[in-house]
C-alpha cells in the first residue's frame, strides 16, 4: 500500500461478536469463529480479526508483543529497538497455517517481554506507559513495522481476508480464552493493509468497532492534546485511545467513560437528581471533545472485562445474550445463536447503554431486569419513568 493510501482514513461497516465467561472458564476459538462466520455478509473479505484474553497463562506477567513486518529492514530496526528497551523472554513466529484465501501475509512475530528495569526506573513511568510509548514509537517511526497487540495474557490476531479464514490461518482452535472478540470488516475504500484490520489494541485493551465516527476530526484533535498520535487513520484507533485516556489515565469508571463517549442528551441529564446532574454536566463540559458522534457499535475488552456499547441514538446494531455464566454480544441475534444455540436471554441494549460483563460478577450491567445500580441504568430508568 502506498504512503498516500496509508495517510487516508478508512471507513467501514462491519460485523462484531464477543463472548465472555464471567467465571473465567476458557474455551477455544471455534464458537467465536462460527459466530463471525454467520455474519459473513456484514464483511467483504477486506479485513478481520480476533482478540482473546487468558491465552498465555504460563507467561501471564509478561507483555506479549504481536508484531507484523512488511520488510526485513523493518524487522531489523524494530527488533533492535525491542532488544534495547526490553528483556525478551521468548521470541517466535506466530504459528499460522496455509489458507488459500489469506494472501501475502507479512512476517508475523511475537515477543514476550518486560521493560528493562533500569530504563523503566530512569523513565519514571509505569511499565504500562513505558510499553505504550515504545509501541507508539515503533508504529509511528518504523515504516513497515506494526505492533498489533501488546497486552499481558492476551493477544490480537488480524489479517486481510474473511474472519473465518483468518481464524483458520492463525489456528485459533489451539488457543483457550475466557473472552473472545471478533470482527469482520467492510471497508469502503482502499483495502489491503493488515495493520488496518480490527481489533485495534493498546496494552491489554482491544476494540472492535462497527461504524463511522462523524466527529472523527475533533476526537482526533482532542486526543492529540493528550499526546496520542492517530497514525492508523481508522476510527477504531480513536475509540481505543479515548478508552485509554478516560479509563486508565483519567480513572473514570467504565460506565462513566461510556457516558462520555455516548453522552446522554441534556434533556435526559435534566431529569436526573441534582447531584447527578452536576456530574453529568461537568462530564459534558469537560469531555465535549471525547463525545463520539455518529454511528457506532463497539465491543471492547480488557483483562477481566468485556463491554458493548452503542452511539447515543443507536445508529448501528448490537444485540446481547446470556446463558449460564456466559455473556454474548453480536451485531445480530444470529451471531449470538451461532455461539450459543439456546440463550436464556436475548435483548437489544438501548442507545448509549453499555452492557458490561465483569469477571467474578454474575450480574451483567445493562441486563434487563438487573437492579438499577448503574448510572447508565439509572439514566434509562429515568427515561422510562417519564
Amino acid at each position, binding site marked *: 500500500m502506498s504512503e498516500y493510501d496509508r495517510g487516508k*482514513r478508512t471507513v467501514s461497516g462491519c460485523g462484531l461478536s464477543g463472548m465472555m465467561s464471567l467465571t473465567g472458564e476458557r474455551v477455544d476459538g471455534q464458537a467465536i469463529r462460527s459466530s463471525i462466520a454467520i455474519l459473513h455478509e456484514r464483511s467483504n473479505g477486506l479485513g478481520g480479526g480476533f482478540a482473546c484474553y487468558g491465552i498465555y497463562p504460563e507467561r501471564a506477567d509478561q507483555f506479549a508483543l504481536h508484531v507484523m513486518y512488511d520488510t526485513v529492514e523493518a524487522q531489523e530496526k524494530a527488533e533492535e529497538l525491542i532488544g534495547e528497551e526490553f528483556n525478551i523472554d521468548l521470541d517466535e513466529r506466530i504459528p499460522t497455517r496455509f489458507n488459500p484465501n489469506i494472501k501475502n501475509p507479512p512476517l508475523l512475530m511475537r515477543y514476550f517481554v518486560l521493560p528493562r528495569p533500569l530504563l523503566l526506573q530512569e523513565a519514571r513511568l509505569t511499565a504500562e506507559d513505558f510499553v505504550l510509548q515504545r509501541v507508539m514509537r515503533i508504529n509511528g517511526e518504523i515504516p513497515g513495522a506494526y505492533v498489533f497487540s501488546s497486552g499481558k495474557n492476551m493477544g490480537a490476531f488480524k489479517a486481510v481476508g474473511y474472519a473465518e479464514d483468518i481464524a483458520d490461518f492463525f489456528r485459533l482452535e489451539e488457543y483457550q480464552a475466557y473472552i473472545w472478540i471478533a470482527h469482520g470488516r467492510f471497508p469502503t475504500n482502499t483495502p489491503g493493509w493488515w495493520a488496518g484490520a480490527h481489533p485495534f489494541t493498546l496494552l491489554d485493551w482491544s476494540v472492535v468497532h462497527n461504524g463511522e465516527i462523524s466527529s472523527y476530526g475533533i476526537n482526533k484533535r482532542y486526543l492529540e492534546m493528550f499526546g496520542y498520535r492517530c497514525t492508523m487513520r481508522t476510527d477504531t484507533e480513536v475509540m481505543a485511545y479515548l478508552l485509554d485516556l478516560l479509563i486508565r489515565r483519567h480513572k473514570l469508571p467504565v460506565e462513566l467513560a461510556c457516558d462520555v463517549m455516548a453522552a446522554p442528551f441534556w434533556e435526559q441529564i435534566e431529569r436526573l437528581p441534582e447531584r447527578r446532574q452536576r456530574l453529568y454536566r461537568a462530564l459534558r463540559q*469537560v469531555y465535549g471533545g471525547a463525545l463520539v458522534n455518529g454511528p457506532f457499535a463497539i465491543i471492547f475488552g480488557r483483562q477481566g472485562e468485556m463491554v458493548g456499547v452503542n452511539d447515543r441514538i443507536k445508529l448501528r446494531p448490537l444485540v446481547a445474550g446470556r446463558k449460564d455464566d456466559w455473556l454474548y454480544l453480536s451485531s445480530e441475534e444470529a451471531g449470538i445463536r451461532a455461539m450459543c444455540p439456546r440463550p436464556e436471554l436475548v435483548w437489544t441494549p438501548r442507545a448509549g447503554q453499555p452492557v458490561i460483563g465483569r469477571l467474578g460478577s454474575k450480574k451483567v450491567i445493562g441486563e434487563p431486569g438487573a437492579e438499577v445500580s448503574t448510572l447508565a441504568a439509572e439514566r434509562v430508568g429515568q427515561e422510562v419513568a417519564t
Partner: protein
Amino acid sequence: MSTTTRDSDIRGRKARKAQRGARVQGYRPADFVWRRDADRCALCKRCVQQCGFDAISWENEPVADPAKCVGCHRCEAMCPQRAITIEPNPQYLRPHPLWTESHRKNLWLQAETGGVLVSGMGNDLPYPIIWDSLLLDACQVTNPSIDPLREPMELRTYLGRRPDQVEVAMTLEGPDLAAELPPNLELAVPVLFAAMSYGSISLNAQKAIAMAAEELGTYWNTGEGGLHEDLKPYAHRAFVQCASGRFGVTVDYLNSGAAVEIKIGQGAKPGIGGHLPGEKVSAEVSETRMIPVGSDALSPAPQHDIYSIEDLRQLIYALKEATNYEKPVSVKIAAVHNVAAIASGIVRAGADIVYLDGFRGGTGAAPTIIRDHLGIPIEIAVAVVDQQLREEGIRNQASLIAAGGIRSSADAAKAIALGADAVALGTAALLALGCTLCQKCYTGRCSWGITTQDPALTRRLDPYVGSRRLVNLVRAWAAELEEILGAMGVNAIESLRGSRERLRAVGLDRTTMDVMGVKPAGVGA
C-alpha cells in the same frame, strides 16, 4: 459647492480647529442621487422629517441635497407613497484601477480638511472573504445523516475555564463530582451579542439586544460604556466590559454582570482606543459613563495599567478578586498577526474566555485608515489560536469567541468547525434592528435610531419590536445550525467544534490551507 463633510468626519480637536480656519473646498461628487416621483408624491413632508442628516428640505415640495444623503434609505422606507428612489450617483468618474473612486474622494476630502478620516461599521474593502472559500461536509451512505425535525439536536454551549479531567469521587450513592468546575456561562445557542456600548448605540438598541439575549438564553455585552440604570434587570445576562477608558466601571457594575470582559482591542481598530464623539454624549450617556456632557469620550489606545502580559494577569486577577472568583473573565483582542501567541499568553495569564475580533469587525467610529488596513481575518485567527492552544495542551483552560464579520449561520458553523466555542454578532444584530449599513454611525444622526442619542431619532426604535427581530434572527440561525449538524450526522455542537475534518477549501492557496489546518476539496477522509 456642497460637501458631505461635517465636523465629526474629522477626528481630533486640533484638526477641527485647523479645519475651521483653513478649510479649502473643492469638487467632490455625491455618492447618491435622490429621486422623487412627483406623480406619486403626496407632499406629506414625511421624508423631510425622517432624514436624520438634514439632506431633505421643504421648498413647497421636498428637495434633496444629494451631497448630504448617506444612502440610509430611511426616507424611502417611510414614504407612504413609495415615491422615493435612492441610487448610486451615475455621474461617472473615469475609472482607474489604482486610483479608485473612493481613493479619490478620500483624498479630496483630506485636501479640503487636513484631518484624519473617520468611518463607522466594518472594513468595506474587497479583501478576500475566507468564509466563501470554505465548504461544509455532509453524510452519504457510510454514516447516516440525522433528521433534526425528528431527532434531538443540541446546541447548548458553555463558556469558561475547564479542568483537563473530571475528578470523580465514589460515594455510597454512586459516583459524584469530587471538585466543582470553575464558573461557566451556559448558552442555549453558540451565538451571543457583541460588545456595543451605550453611547455608540442608543439605549433602545441596547435594550432590544439585552431583552433578546435573555429570551434566547444567551448573553449580551455592555461594551465600554457602562450599564444604564434601565438595563440592570438584564445585567445577569451581560458581559460587563472594562476598557481602557474605564467608563462606568464600579465594583457594583463588575458584580452585576454574568462575566467581566477586559477590552484590549477591537477588530475595526486594533491598537486604537475607543472614540465616542461628543455629539453622542447626552446627559444620560454622561451619567452612565461618568464623563461630562458633550465631551469626546476618547478611551486611550492601551490600557494604562497594562503594558505587558504580566500586567494583564494582574488586572485579570484584580477583577476576579473584585467579583469573588464567581464570574469568568474574558479578554477581547483584535486579531493581529501574532494573535496565536498573544492568545496563548492571555490564557496563561488567567483569562477564562478569549474574544477574538477579526479585521472585518464593526465600530461606531474608527479612523478609516486603521479600520481598512490593520488586523487579520477572523477565519485565520480562530484557526491558529485554537491550534496553538491545543498544541500547548491548554485549550480546555479557556473558551474562544469569534467575531468580526459573521454574516450567516454558515459562517457561524465554519467558525465553530475552525475551533470557536461561540460566535458574537455585532453588525448582524444591528442589521436585524434595521441598520442598512450606511456607515455613518460616528455622526450620531442615525435615522433608524440605532447609533444616535437624539431622542427624536432614538424613539424610532421600539426595543420590543427590535428584540423580537433579534430573537427571530438567532432562532432562524439556530434552526439552520441544527440542519447543518444533522446533515453532518452529528447531534451535538461539540462534535462540530474544532472538527476541521468537516471543512474543505476551494480556491485557497496551499499556505493558507496549511495555516488553517483545512484540506482542499477533493481530498477525502
